[in-house]
């Protein structure tokens, strides 16, 4: 995937410099007038290629397939997602329209993040996230880059295919097009995907039109989403979602999650860390904070 992107969209000189070294990279960072860096197994590697401002702009236009306008709203939030679920974070000059960010132009930094698929990564968590085989409403908490979307993706696949968990109809509200990666990842045979749809609208839409038994979404945290989540859970739907954060305590200090946990919407909280390498389940608690998994376990080992 990454090799294709580099060969297809990057300037030839950069593509040659990166070559096959970055094939399994997790992230490539391009900064104006700075050397290109990429991250592999959590370590930073540098290559002898300096990207110019013009090149950065060309890369953005090429990645957006010369349709930057169609990513306008995403870019205004600082990223856009291209084929295969590759998230392109952008930095540059922000164009404002009153209080609203209208666009970002004169790009100075790009951050290409590769999505991963690790089938089976959720296997070890099955006993903690299920009751009589059925998945419980789960919140996955993790700092960036530790595999929360990968874990979410595998839980959805596992539930949808009835692998370990009881098979259920799933709907993924994929606002950033990262979970399904433009349908390039296996999300199971009973999964419907709403791509590019804002979470709050998507959750209500899915509930009305797709009759899901499990709703999955990434990076929740806006107060506006709370109502839609409540509506879904009150309709008997199980919610599986992720959030940025380092610990349960840190998350609980935020109003959104405080309310979410108080309302007893979430039955299980999984905290990921890097203690035993990427994708370590540091702890699993129930909605009230009672520890269920006390010692960290590496989830990678169960991935195929």
């Amino acid at each position, binding site marked *: 995937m990454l090799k294709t992107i580099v060969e*297809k*969209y990057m*300037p030839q000189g950069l593509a040659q410099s990166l070559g096959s070294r970055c094939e399994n990279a997790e992230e490539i960072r391009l900064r104006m007038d700075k050397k290109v860096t990429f991250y592999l197994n959590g370590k930073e590697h540098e290559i002898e290629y300096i990207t110019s401002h013009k090149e950065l702009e*060309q890369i953005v*236009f*090429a990645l*957006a*397939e*010369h*349709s*930057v*306008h*169609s990513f*306008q709203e995403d*870019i205004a939030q600082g990223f856009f997602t291209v084929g295969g679920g590759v998230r392109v974070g952008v930095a540059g000059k922000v164009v404002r329209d009153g209080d609203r960010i*209208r*666009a970002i*132009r004169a790009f100075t930094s790009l951050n290409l993040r590769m999505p991963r698929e690790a089938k089976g990564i959720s296997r070890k968590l099955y006993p903690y996230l299920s009751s009589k085989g059925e998945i419980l409403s789960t919140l996955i908490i993790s700092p960036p880059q530790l595999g929360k979307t990968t874990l979410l993706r595998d839980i959805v696949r596992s539930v949808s295919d009835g692998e370990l968990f009881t098979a259920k109809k799933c709907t993924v509200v994929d606002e950033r097009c990262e979970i399904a990666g433009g349908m390039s990842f296996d999300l199971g045979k009973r999964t419907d995907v709403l791509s590019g749809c804002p979470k709050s609208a998507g959750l209500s839409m899915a509930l009305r039109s797709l009759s899901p038994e499990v709703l999955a979404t990434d990076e929740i945290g806006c107060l506006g989403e709370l109502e839609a989540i409540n509506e879904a859970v009150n309709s008997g739907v199980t919610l599986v979602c992720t959030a940025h954060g380092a610990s349960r305590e840190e998350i609980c200090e935020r109003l959104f999650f405080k309310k979410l946990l108080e309302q007893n919407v979430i039955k299980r909280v999984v905290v990921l860390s890097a203690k035993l390498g990427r994708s370590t389940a540091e702890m699993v608690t129930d909605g009230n904070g009672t520890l269920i998994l006390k010692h960290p376990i590496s989830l990678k080992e169960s991935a195929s």
Partner: protein
Amino acid sequence: MIFKLFFLGVIVVGSACLGNVLASSLEERLTALKSLANGVASLKNALIYQGMSLAEGLAFASRDGEIFDTCAKLIFSNPRASGGEIAQRAYKENKEVFANLTEDERIFFGELLERLSRAAVPEQIGEAVAIFSREIVSSINKASEEQHKRSRVIRSMCLLGGLAFAIIIV
């Protein structure tokens, strides 16, 4: 006498038909320009209202002319190239589809693709298409006037030639 009149009629009708055929060949350019204008309108709709990428939009507009299909294929295979470069490559690789356009019109089309490929907000697409449409509408008007004048002259010349020929023969 009847035979002579019939023969006269055949020559006159035949020459009038020839005039029509010659005049209709002038319409090709006008048709090509109108198709280009329609295609660009479809492209604008595809980009603004359907959120398509430039390549998808060009493919969508391809029913209005091969020119759009050629450019769409080139963008799909060369995502690094800008819109202007794509228009130039399309002209180099498939001159036939640009046969009915003048050099100025080709340049306008290239500029349109360049502007579209660099548009960051939908308003810029509207403006790029408006600029192109102004030029192409002016070309259509000129071509239409010219075609009208020339077709009248050709038809008259053919008819008169046919009559003269018939009189001489008969």
